[in-house]
């Protein structure tokens, strides 16, 4: 099959970017979206042109490295998948696919489709851990946790930090990401010790990084590869009230 990729090209952070069209042939429906970009880059190398910069790592949908805005959706036309899990069978022969980097003030473009997501790292640094020395792995059943709580913590912990929530949010809010990290730790006994300080510090950092407000449009939970529920944001709000009163 043949596709036209309309890709955002930007040399570096300060440079002015623009869309460039690439007509690519010899593609198959089984190819993943990232393989199609690899294929295009091989052509560009042979033509002595600069290749398209895009991020990836595992290509199994679990690392959170890949992520671009494809045809008006974060991670492409399907809900709850990462970009690497998108295949060309989702497009029709002859389609034009518009590929843009995540757009947010807190995610400045590094080159082409790669953005700097270290704002997420700094939110993590502000409390998404426990400070107790835990030593070697303890006996698994030393701390008993009910299944309902364990399930909820794991659902939140599934966040891979890809940034699709920020990318798709009209306000570039990092509420879903921050909420997932907070609820993951705060619902478990190990995280309870520093629960209030964690909520206060991580939400403060979220504000400092320049993310917007949460409008509860619900777009984030639809685009999240892990399907993390927006209910997490409401839960974070409740935890913040509690922390502001008690913390």
């Amino acid at each position, binding site marked *: 099959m043949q596709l036209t990729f309309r890709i955002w090209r930007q040399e570096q952070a300060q440079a002015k970017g623009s*869309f460039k069209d690439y007509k690519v042939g010899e593609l198959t429906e089984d190819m993943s979206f990232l393989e199609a970009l690899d294929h295009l880059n091989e052509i560009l190398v042979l033509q002595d042109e600069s290749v398209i910069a895009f991020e990836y790592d595992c290509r199994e949908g679990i690392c959170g490295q890949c992520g671009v*805005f494809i*045809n*008006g*959706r974060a991670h492409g*036309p399907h*809900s709850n998948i990462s970009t690497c899990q998108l295949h060309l069978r989702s497009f029709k022969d002859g389609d034009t696919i*518009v590929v*843009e980097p995540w*757009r*947010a*003030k*807190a995610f400045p473009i590094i080159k082409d489709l790669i953005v700097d997501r270290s704002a997420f790292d700094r939110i993590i640094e502000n409390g998404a851990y426990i400070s107790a020395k835990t030593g070697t792995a303890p006996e698994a059943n030393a701390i008993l946790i009910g299944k309902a709580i364990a399930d909820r913590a794991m659902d939140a912990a599934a966040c891979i930090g890809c940034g699709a929530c920020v990318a*798709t*949010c*009209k*306000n*570039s*809010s990092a509420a879903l990401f921050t909420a997932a990290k907070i609820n993951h730790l705060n619902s478990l006994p190990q995280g309870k010790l520093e629960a209030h300080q964690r909520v*206060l510090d991580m*939400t*403060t950092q*979220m*504000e400092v990084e*320049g*993310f*917007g*407000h*949460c*409008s*509860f*449009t*619900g*777009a984030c939970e*639809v*685009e999240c590869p892990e399907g993390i529920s*927006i*209910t*997490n*944001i*409401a*839960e974070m*709000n*409740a*935890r*913040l*009230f509690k922390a*502001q*009163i008690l913390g």
Partner: protein
Amino acid sequence: MKINPLFFRKNMMALTGLFLCLFLIVHLSANCLLLLPKETARGLYNAYSTWLRENPLIMIIAYALYLSIILHTIYALVITIRNKQAKPVKYAVNHTQENSRWASQNMGILGILVLIFIVIHLVNFWARVKLGIGEEVGYDAAGNKDIYEVTYTLFHNVYYVIFYTLLMIPLGLHLHHGLQSAFKTLGFYHKRGLILLAKVSLIYAIVVAVGFGIIPIVVYFQ
């Protein structure tokens, strides 16, 4: 206690919004009197209006109401400015309709329409009755200010009937998203509760929009 502006602003939006939602129920309940036959409605509506104006508790609530509208507007503005700063470059292609409701993406536009409605509505009634601006309001047989006549005259102007009815559509959409969003902002995260909340918000929005929307039409045909 450290205040996080991102959350404080949204909490103010939620609290003022919920207060306005509560007000709309009371307002609509009273306005249902306008659906009664002309002279019955006139007597009851004018008596009720007089009672409202003379009740000191209502005076306090009225000021809370003015304050809520003003704060809701100001915070909406501040929030929108910050949100625009957070997303300075828009996508060339963005299919928001595939991941969210249109109303949730456009609360600002809907809010502006509702605000325009409120301003015109206040000029039509509040300014005439409370501030004495414009044509003087007469008295009915019972000696109460004849607010019904103000309503009756206004809703015999077809343009106002269309305006008052049509503008209930953006109000309904604004309320449908706003009511449930306010609860989530204030930290309501009970799973089954949220499913119920979504239904309640829909019913609330329909009742308010349809309720206020049909009154001008009914009065027009009286």
